[in-house]
């Protein structure tokens, strides 16, 4: 390939092109793909014409339909499994091969490098997909699958494939920084990401096939109260996830090249993610009586789900930003004053990010809560709306604060996986508490109430704006005394738990300080 022709091409794409698709391989793939298509087409054609009860036109249509379905599966395998899997290996392979150090020093901008890796990792997948797509279109015509289905599936393949690939690339970049150790095991990340892509494809396929999904005519999802078809929402969410995964990849490349990264993109991510989440769970448009809209989540369920997703996000944030034992000891060794550590940019950024994320999360909770009050309740509320919101806000703050400190405490221990051990222990703790809580007759026991989702569910039970009926139509009655008792008991228990976590972390901090002083002496 002459340099003049390729002078404007991203060098990383050009390199990938030369490695992945040399002329001989292009020829081989082209021939093999066409042979396979004709063999499979021949088998399906034989099957279609063997049905003597169908007219010739019907046989052709059946062949087209069967082939279209098969090609949909093949394209999904290519774009949801193969391409994300290769993307997930792209940075890890550089590390394994020993070329990552050169990529750290190249003068390509992190954005250019990310684009190069993104396109480069998908070249084989795109190429085969480009070979298959004309047949996909042709069989759609022969099978009379309908324009809407064809367009929807094409959108799913395009947007979903790119989204999975971006996520795969982000995972690869995240696991192959200069400090990452499990490089060999990292090669398993490719199949893992490919597997997740396959699961995503299976999960959302039904929403994109109007003939397959019986509720397509009735089901509507909402975004800030605006009715949308589910597949539109899923497409938007995929675009959202893909764009942010790509941004995350660029940031990881920057970090690996020791380019200072600013915290505001993370804040923006949290703000936009919360805005999307709040929009999806928005409003009290489900009437306080059980109606025909059986596909709706009740406000109580939406509230709990919102809290769950936020809780999960905070677990991941705490796990990824906790100050590990190695780093802590490194910085501490070079600094005479332990408190000077808090002047380090990395720690300041992590703390600020956590506080901003918490503020955004609570703002979303407040907005969501307000949106549930858009109609007048039939029954008066037993406990005021403000009290409930303050209690949930306080409880959630205590939960994530205690959890983050506990994860930081674990990060200071000698765990091989560092802070992620804290994440695993935190999740285990909540699971154990949920099992213990469920074993009591009174479901609002203290063990169960340590969980912010169960707490929110318990304090809003029977609250007329949120929990008059559940999804199955069972009526929930307000009980002011029980609500107040639950509200206080949960807050006290969570407060004690958070205080315990802070105490543990403080003791460990002092112990580390003593150890370092001894080692210095």
């Amino acid at each position, binding site marked *: 390939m002459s*340099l*003049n022709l390729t*002078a404007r091409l991203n*060098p*990383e794409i*050009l*390199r990938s092109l*030369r*490695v992945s698709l040399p002329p001989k391989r292009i020829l081989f793939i082209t021939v093999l793909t066409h042979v396979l298509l004709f063999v499979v087409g021949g088998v399906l054609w034989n099957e279609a014409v063997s049905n003597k009860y169908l007219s010739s036109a019907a046989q052709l249509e059946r062949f087209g339909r069967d082939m279209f379905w098969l090609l949909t599966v093949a394209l999904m395998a290519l774009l949801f499994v193969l391409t994300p899997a290769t993307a997930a290996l792209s940075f890890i392979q550089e590390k394994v*091969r*020993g*070329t990552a*150090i*050169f990529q*750290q*020093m*190249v*003068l*390509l*901008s992190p954005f250019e490098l990310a684009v190069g890796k993104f396109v480069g990792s998908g070249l084989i997948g795109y190429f085969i997909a480009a070979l298959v797509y004309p047949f996909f279109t042709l069989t759609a015509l022969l099978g009379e699958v309908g324009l809407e289905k064809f367009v929807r599936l094409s959108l799913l393949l395009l947007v979903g494939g790119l989204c999975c690939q971006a996520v795969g690339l982000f995972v690869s970049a995240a696991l192959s920084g*200069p400090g990452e150790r499990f490089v060999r095991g990292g090669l398993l990340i490719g199949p893992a990401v490919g597997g997740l892509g396959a699961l995503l494809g299976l999960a959302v396929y039904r929403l994109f096939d109007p003939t397959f999904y019986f509720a397509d005519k009735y089901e509507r999802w909402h975004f800030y109260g605006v009715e949308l078809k589910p597949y539109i929402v899923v497409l938007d969410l995929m675009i959202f996830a893909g764009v942010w995964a790509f941004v995350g990849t660029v940031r990881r490349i920057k970090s690996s*090249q*020791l*380019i*200072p990264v600013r915290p505001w993109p993370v804040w923006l991510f949290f703000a936009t993610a919360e805005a999307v989440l709040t929009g999806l769970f928005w409003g009290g448009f489900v009437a306080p009586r059980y109606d025909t809209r059986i596909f709706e989540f009740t406000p109580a369920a939406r509230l709990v789900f919102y809290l769950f997703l936020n809780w999960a996000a905070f677990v991941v944030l705490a796990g990824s930003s906790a100050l590990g*034992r*190695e780093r802590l*000891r*490194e*910085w*501490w*060794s*070079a*600094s005479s004053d332990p408190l000077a550590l808090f002047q380090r940019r990395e720690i300041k950024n992590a703390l600020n990010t956590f506080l901003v994320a918490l503020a955004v999360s609570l703002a979303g909770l407040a907005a969501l809560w307000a949106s549930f009050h858009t109609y007048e309740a039939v029954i008066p509320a037993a406990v005021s709306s403000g009290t409930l919101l303050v209690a949930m806000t306080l409880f959630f703050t205590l939960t994530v604060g205690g959890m983050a400190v506990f994860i930081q405490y674990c990060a200071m221990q000698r765990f091989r996986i560092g802070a992620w051990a804290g994440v695993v222990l935190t999740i285990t703790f909540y699971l154990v508490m949920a099992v213990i809580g469920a074993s009591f007759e009174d479901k609002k026991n203290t063990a169960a109430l340590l969980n912010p989702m169960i707490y929110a569910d318990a304090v809003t039970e029977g609250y007329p704006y949120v929990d008059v009926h559940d999804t199955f139509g069972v009526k929930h009655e307000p009980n002011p005394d029980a609500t107040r008792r639950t509200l206080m008991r949960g807050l006290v228990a969570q407060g004690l738990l958070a205080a315990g976590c802070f105490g543990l972390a403080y003791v460990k901090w002092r112990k580390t300080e003593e150890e*370092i002083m001894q*080692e*210095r002496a």
Partner: protein
Amino acid sequence: MISTFDLSKYYETRPAVRDVDLYVGMGEICGLIGPNGAGKTTLLKMLAGLLRPTSGKIEVDRIEVGVEPKLLHEIVGYVPDTFGLYDELSVRQFLEYFARAHGVAADRVKKRIASVLDLTRLTSKLEAAVGSLSRGMRQRLVIAKTLLHAPKVLLLDEPASGLDPLARIELRDLIRELGGMGTTLVVSSHILTELADFCTSVVIMEQGHVIRSGRVEELIEAMHAGLPLRIEVLAESDAAALSSALTAREEVKNVSLHELAIDCDFAGDRDALARFHRELVTAHAGIVSFYERHLTIEDVFMAVGSHHVS
């Protein structure tokens, strides 16, 4: 050209590099020497902007490392001690990739590639697959790739390790040539005799500390208190007697006995040295040779270090 100020890097609480203040002038070839674990690779990686220091500051050509890594990488080239290559590509494709990735203008790529291949004597391998190159050629290819953007500073980490004698000689010549072209080089190596051939200055490291640094001749000059001599004798008994006699003389300093040889420094001019020689040979029958030693980096290294490996 390269300055470090109070530079430290800790791995947990273990210091790999500690409080290093260093200066390497423009156009110098600086040898970085020290036993395994002395902190040479860590120091080079920090100079290359690949590793964040725990504390301290580095400036390369007045660019502060860690603030503008891209600016730094425009003027610095780094050849690591272990590396991998894109074996599927040809040498030309490999160098084209790095030339473009280092911002070499498209119309200059061919010329630059020809130039670095000529310098590293790899021109005949232009269309060969990278995977087919020998260890020495791969090493030279990486140096060629590093030279593509004409860095002002070249950092080489153990460039001669794993190379056969011929490849080492070629590498040494290449480093000399680069030094002659005005590139500032920092070369870490275990093979002190090789460094002695081309280094204009050395930095001796041990357990993370720089224990001695400066221009080679100044370090050698500072090391002895007169003319460095070596006297070789026939038998160990002669050596012991001669050693005692030398220690008793005022003009002789730093007497050290090595089996059948004695090293010492003679404080005096060459006339005095001639008289001293006559006296010794007359008084001690077992002397087989008497000559002025030429001190090398190796002598400096052996004299100043405790040679403890971290």
